[in-house]
């Protein structure tokens, strides 16, 4: 098992690391459009393309936090637009429960984000990432679930 958390960085050099799970059909295309359209956004996000937002199990979110992600974004098609018709509706229920549970346990609000981004929303994607990056930056490095070796 590998935990790819960069160690030993000083806090004033600290930059938030955000993992974004983007659905293949809408949000990833949206990110692509943001790039093609040259919308600027902070480089703190690492994108992982998934077939559908419903592919994202809570484990992937928790594992990201454990491995040192300071924020996690899950993004899929707007309701009604799912390539698989209802994947995002099913995901929405799952995430509602997870989101509440994480907050309930006291994991800081603002670590885990959910958003609908369509393939046409390149500009919105860039804005979204900018917003989330700043929110996570304001929170500082993640603490709660990070696994350290010492």
């Amino acid at each position: 098992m590998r935990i790819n958390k960069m160690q030993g960085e000083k806090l004033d050099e600290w930059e938030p690391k955000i993992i974004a799970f983007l659905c293949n059909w809408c949000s990833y295309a949206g990110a692509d459009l943001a790039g093609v359209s040259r919308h600027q956004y902070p480089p703190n996000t690492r994108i992982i393309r998934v077939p559908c937002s419903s592919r994202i199990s809570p484990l992937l979110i928790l594992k990201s936090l454990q491995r040192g992600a300071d924020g996690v974004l899950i993004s899929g098609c707007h309701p009604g637009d799912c390539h698989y018709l209802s994947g995002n509706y099913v995901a929405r229920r799952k995430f509602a429960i997870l989101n509440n549970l994480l907050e309930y346990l006291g994991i800081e609000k603002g670590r885990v984000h959910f958003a609908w981004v369509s393939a046409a929303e390149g500009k919105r994607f860039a804005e979204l990432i900018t917003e989330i990056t700043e929110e996570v930056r304001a929170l500082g490095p993640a603490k709660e679930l990070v696994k350290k070796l010492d």
Partner: protein
Amino acid sequence: MLDTSVMIRDAAKKLLDQKRVDLIIGFETGTLPLRSTPCFVRTSEEAEKLIWNASCENNLARYLRGREEKVGIVAKGCDTRSIISLIKEKQVAREQVFIIGVPCHGMIDRRKIEAKLDGKEILEADEATERVILKGRDFTETINKAEFLHNSCNTCSYRNPVIYDVLIGDKVEEKRGIDEYGEVKEFEAQPADRRWQSFTNEVSKCIRCYACRNACPLCYCQECFVDSSQPQWIGKTTNLSDASIFHIVCAFHTAGRCVDCGACDRACPMGIDIRKLTRKIEKDVKELFHYQAGVNLEDVPPLAAFSLDDPQQFIR
């Protein structure tokens, strides 16, 4: 209690003699005071061992899966709710199970009694309808059962079996006016850092014995995520991060399925308040999706369904 035991035995004998079932899963007297133990009865002679009392705390639905034979099962309200969940998830066929439903007054939490006795050992317990007489080396104490029930029994509103093929005795009156999620609400009201502190306090006790998972009738994944090696989701040590993720994911996995039978809680040797998580999920499922697990065979499980106007304020 005695009557209930006799009625269970008679029902079991009849079922076995008439070859309507091959096996009865019930309880027999345990080896310690205030303890009963699951038993597996295949002949009507063996059925003599079957008993019923306030220490029949295990959820026997846990033993139903993966059987070839036709099974009779002694089931309390919560057990029948688990059976419903199992039937819905196609783990057990309704026809395969003969449910001997037993109305339940709640099960005694021996740890609460032990805490009250502060280390004095119970050597004998005589159970009456409402009280239990406890005897130790140099004490005798009578307690009110109602004051020492498991937490899940205190908030239970399904004391009567939800489905059954035969009902033993009369139905009991369901509790009214209980604040079902009082504990959850109390916890929700605390500040976030206190909640995290108290969650990690609980989890730090975990010895990763998986008794909670193995006692749960609904934890039956062929390969549990904690056992997977490719990928290895979490480490195997008692590291707090690993243990936290174990408990969060386990609880999450029961969303819309958990019937709050309390089996996980009762099995935990370290006294971790596992229901603190499962209850919250149960409450949310009820509030957000208007669903309660194991109360009928018809409703579609909430995470296998959706509605166009499901809440989504948390999504940007």
